Structures are given as structure tokens and as C-alpha cells.
């Protein structure tokens, strides 16, 4: 029987912490493969062993296949978990792991390749009878020809990098006059980001919802679905708020979506955790892409389904199974996740870096905080600015929204600015609350982030200045007050 005594983590931040926690519970030792910039992080403090695999820039460390493999081998690891981002969807990396007899916690390299190439993925999906967004995905990549194809598809059209993901190399063309420049620009971005200029065209759906299905394949070939998530709140194709189940979806369409996702996973002989992304508009839904990894937003599924996807991934890589029976997998309540980015919401979201000061996570029932930094740690400009995720669960969607609002209001992060005010504004918006939001939501209502409208009482600044400066005696008196009034005495329960 396969076993893992020691698992290497080829990632950083909150997801590295997430994996370490799962391993600790399973009695597996962890090795953190980290860059020079990441010694002052929570993952570094929690792991059993740490190996520095290179300098801070990602291409010299987290994206360096050889350095990751050598790091894992040097620490006697038997497996590598790639997390998300970085090398998690890199077939070459999965293959290199196999070659060095390291277990890659993820799908087989062929599967990653099949779904990683958006064109081959679309072909497979169409073969099993699932609709994809109308478009062009041919070999003729001449700009003039692509413009002709745009005309056929009908505007608006979105140009996407074939090797892409995460919003880069994507351009929306609203009419013929913009087509040439947009296609050229998409090609340039595609080369810069993914090393390949190949693009494809898709009809741009302007009032669609982003619905994705969590699927899972165990080592015996059983494919499970763990219901859907909705991630319509996106900024520049990057998700900001996710939830499970979908905010508002027709039961019949849900059934069709779940069935379609399972079909696609089965056709790809899928193993491990994966996500099938769809765009749903009116009564139609279209396959967008399959992500062959753990998703950032996996916690909302864990909350409503009562599963641990990271442990399930590790068990699957050890050939343990079957993991569940589909009939036992049933969702309960509603879960929402907010991604906390270190950025200035009042300056169109420019990243905020520097040393983190005090942090306070307001713990409570149905609240979960996935984070990778602690007080005193540094937010560096080298990596994605997502520093934490706040996840809540409650019995209904409206209660979950109320819980999220209160949780974010009580969350304290000093030293770097965060998007919490931005998240709160979204959570207050009537279209979000109604569940009607589409992928256009942020473009429509918050295109420039927030306007500066913080209201600060001068009284408080004056009082605090003297208290913080004077120290000593004030602290004692406030401690006494803390005992008298804990935040739990505040009413956090919903009105509905």
C-alpha cells in the first residue's frame, strides 16, 4: 500500500498553510519549498522542514520546475502538492515528479495537458454533447482572418489566449473598428504571459453568470460532483467573492450543469479535484474551461458539503477510495468567501505592500479564516496580493451575507491597506443581495474601486493619539473594559 511520510509543498501563502494543516491532521510531515522572500510567513513557521528553492521572483523559484523537484528530493519528500497557481497546472512539472518517483498530488499529466490546452478541451467537451460558447478556434491565426471570424460569431466577441487563464491575454471586441488592435494586443499579451501567440474567439455573453461545478475523481475512476459555486463577482476576470451554492439558479438548469460536469470529467478520465467552469445565460449554459487543480474558492464547497478537499486529494494520490457515495453528498446551507487583497480600494485597487501590523480575526460560529500572514510579516510585491480568505457559512444565503458583513466589519488588519471596504460595498449592493448579479457586476457598479468617502471622527483621532502615545495606564483600564464587554455581547444575529 502506498504511503506518504513526507509531503513537499510547491507553493506559498494561505494555500501552503491550508495544505500543511491537512497534512498535520493526517500525520504527514511537510516540507515547504519557498523563495528567499518567504521566510517570514506563517507557512514557514508551521512546516516541519523548509527548503529555499531560489530568489524572490517567481520564475527563479516557484515556477522553476528543477528547483522544486531538487528541493523536494533533498528533504526526502515522497510527494508534492502544487496548491493553485504557479506549477499546479503544468503537465511538465507533473511529469518531472513522476520521473523522480515523486507523487504529484493532482491529475495525471495527460489530463492536465488535455484540459490545459483550451482548444483540445473544447473539442472534447463538444464531443460529449456539451455546448461551448460559439466562436472560432482554428489554426489560421492571421489577424485579418480572425476579424472575418469575429464577424461570423457576431459582436461582442472576446479574444482569449489558447494557453491562458486568469484574465491575461483576454480582450473584448465590441465592433469591427476595434477588432484589429484588440486581436493584436491579445496576441502580444499571450506571448508575454504564456509564451504562445495563439488565440481563439468567443461570443461575449453580456449578462451571464459564472457557475462552476466542483468535481472529483477517485483513483478507482468514480466521478463525483460536489455541487456548484457561483463566482459572478469578478474584477478583470479575477474572482472577488464566491459562494456555494449558486445565488439564484433554476433547479432544472442546476441538474443539467452537474450532469454535464460529470460527463466532461468522465470523458477526460479525471482523477483528483477539478472544476468545470460554465457561463450560464438565460436558459443556456456553455462550457468555459476545466481547471485541473484545487481552486482558491474550494472552502465554500467544503462548508456546504462537509468535506475536506485537500485530504481527499492526498487520499486519492495514495489510491485510497472510494471516497464517498454520490447519494451521500448533499449540500446544506449557504457559504460565501471573500478574498482579502492587500490593496488600496480608494485608489482603484493598487497593491499595498509593507510590514503587516496588528491583525484580529473575529472568530465565531460558521466563520473560517484562511490566511498566510501574521503580525510582523511582510507583504512583498513579488506575488499575488491575496493575503487571506474569509469564509462564512449559515443556514440561508441572506444570513450568510449578514454574517460576512459583520465578520468583515470586525476584521482588523493594520499596516497594509485591504479591499475590505470594497467587499463590504459589494455585500451591501442590492443586485448582489438579490442574487441577480452577472459577470458584469463590477464593471457596471464599481469600475474604479471606491470613491474616497471614509468618515472619521476627529474626536477619536485626538483621543487615541494621546492614549496610544501615553501607553501604560490606559492599557490597563481598557483591559478591564474588555472583560466587562466582550464583542460577543454584540448582536450578530440576523433580523430575518
Amino acid at each position, binding site marked *: 500500500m502506498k504511503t506518504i511520510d513526507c509531503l513537499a509543498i510547491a507553493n506559498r501563502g494561505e494555500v501552503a498553510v491550508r495544505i500543511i494543516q491537512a497534512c498535520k491532521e493526517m500525520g504527514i510531515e511537510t516540507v515547504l519549498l519557498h523563495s528567499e522572500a518567504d521566510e517570514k510567513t506563517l507557512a514557514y513557521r508551521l512546516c516541519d522542514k523548509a527548503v529555499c528553492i531560489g530568489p524572490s521572483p517567481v520564475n527563479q523559484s516557484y515556477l522553476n520546475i528543477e528547483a522544486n523537484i531538487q528541493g523536494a528530493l533533498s528533504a526526502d519528500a515522497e510527494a508534492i502538492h502544487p496548491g493553485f497557481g504557479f506549477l499546479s497546472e503544468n503537465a511538465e512539472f507533473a511529469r518531472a515528479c513522476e520521473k523522480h518517483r515523486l507523487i504529484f498530488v493532482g491529475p495525471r499529466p495527460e489530463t492536465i495537458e488535455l484540459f490545459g490546452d483550451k482548444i483540445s478541451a473544447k473539442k472534447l467537451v463538444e464531443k460529449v454533447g456539451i455546448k461551448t460558447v460559439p466562436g472560432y478556434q482554428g489554426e489560421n491565426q492571421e489577424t485579418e482572418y480572425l476579424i472575418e471570424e469575429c464577424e461570423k460569431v457576431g459582436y461582442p466577441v472576446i479574444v482569449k489566449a489558447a494557453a491562458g487563464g486568469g484574465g491575461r491575454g483576454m480582450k473584448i471586441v465590441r465592433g469591427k473598428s476595434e477588432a484589429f488592435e484588440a486581436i493584436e494586443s491579445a496576441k502580444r499579451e499571450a506571448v508575454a504571459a504564456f509564451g504562445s501567440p495563439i488565440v481563439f474567439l468567443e461570443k461575449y455573453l453580456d449578462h451571464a453568470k459564472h457557475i462552476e461545478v466542483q468535481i472529483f475523481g477517485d483513483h478507482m475512476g468514480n466521478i463525483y460532483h460536489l455541487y456548484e459555486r457561483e463566482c459572478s463577482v469578478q474584477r478583470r476576470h479575477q474572482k472577488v467573492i464566491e459562494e456555494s451554492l449558486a445565488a439564484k439558479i433554476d433547479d432544472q438548469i442546476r441538474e443539467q450543469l452537474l450532469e454535464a460536469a460529470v460527463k466532461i470529467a468522465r470523458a477526460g478520465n479525471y482523477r483528483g479535484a477539478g472544476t468545470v467552469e460554465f457561463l450560464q445565460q438565460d436558459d443556456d449554459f456553455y462550457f468555459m474551461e476545466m481547471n485541473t487543480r484545487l481552486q482558491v474558492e474550494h472552502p465554500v464547497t467544503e462548508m456546504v458539503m462537509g468535506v475536506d478537499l485537500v485530504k481527499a486529494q492526498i487520499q486519492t494520490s495514495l489510491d485510497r477510495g472510494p471516497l464517498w457515495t454520490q447519494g451521500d453528498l448533499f449540500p446544506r446551507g449557504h457559504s460565501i468567501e471573500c478574498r482579502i487583497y492587500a490593496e488600496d480600494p480608494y485608489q482603484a485597487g493598487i497593491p499595498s505592500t509593507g*510590514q503587516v*501590523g*496588528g*491583525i*484580529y480575526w473575529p472568530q465565531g460560529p460558521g466563520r473560517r479564516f484562511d490566511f498566510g500572514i501574521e*503580525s510582523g510579516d511582510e507583504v512583498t510585491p513579488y506575488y499575488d496580493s491575496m493575503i487571506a480568505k474569509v469564509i462564512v457559512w449559515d443556514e440561508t444565503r441572506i444570513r450568510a451575507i449578514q454574517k460576512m458583513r459583520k465578520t*468583515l*466589519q*470586525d476584521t*482588523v*488588519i*493594520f*499596516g497594509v*491597506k*485591504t479591499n*475590505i*471596504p470594497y467587499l*463590504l460595498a459589494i455585500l451591501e449592493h442590492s443586485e448582489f443581495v438579490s442574487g441577480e448579479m452577472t459577470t458584469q457586476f463590477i464593471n457596471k457598479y464599481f469600475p474604479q474601486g471606491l470613491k*474616497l*468617502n*471614509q*468618515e*472619521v*471622527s*476627529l*474626536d*477619536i*483621532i485626538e*483621543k*487615541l*493619539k494621546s*492614549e*496610544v*502615545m501615553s501607553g501604560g495606564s*490606559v*492599557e490597563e483600564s*481598557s483591559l478591564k*473594559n*474588555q472583560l466587562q*464587554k466582550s*464583542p460577543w455581547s454584540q448582536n450578530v444575529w440576523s433580523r430575518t
Partner: protein
Amino acid sequence: MKRYFLEVDGQWQWVWAERIGNEFWFHCNGNTHNVEFKSKTSRRGGNTEFIESGEIKAPMPGKIMKVLKKLGEKVVVGETVIVMEAMKMEYSLEADVTGTLESISVSENDQVNLGQLLASISKEEND
């Protein structure tokens, strides 16, 4: 980071606060704010105090109501240079040094951001 229970504008509330370098961070009513100030360590001990910067910055976002001094005019410590309005309250921004008004970057009715430089005073060099 410490937590204080303070009476603010007549209401008792919890306030988290911390000084980080030149910035003063606090969290109350569901919002986090940071205000910049300048400090120096006195030679006598470790006490910090507000340094005389000669700069007048907006302590909070708001609207300029009055600019009381003209460019090149002499000002003395404690004299009001600018009156701004924020949260329906007027706030007098005073000179923290004695000297000459060197620059004014705002005029009446301007909206200003937190920390924005409004005016600067070149300090009179005498004992």
C-alpha cells in the same frame, strides 16, 4: 495593537489602535483608518512627540472652507491657516512652526484627501 473602549462623539465603542512607524492606524465602527504623523525621539528619553514639520496636511478627507493666510505672509505657532470641513464639523488647521507661508496648494471649496499636503511654512531660523 491594543483595544480601547472609548467615548467617541458621545458614544462608547471599541477601538483598535496601533502606531506603525509614522502612521497611526485605528479601527472602529467597521472601518480601518490610517493617519500619518511625524515623530522624533527626544534626546532626553524615549518619549515621542509630534515634530514641527512646517507642513499642513489634511487630517481627514473633507472640504476646504477658508484659507486665512496669503502666500508669503508671516504666521506664528498655533495660528489658524486653513479651516476645513469634514463630517459636518469645522476643523482649524494650525501652523506648528513660526515662519513664512511658503506654499498653498488648495483654495476654498476644494475637496481634499486624507494626508494631502495643503500648505507649507518655511521656519524662521532664530533661537
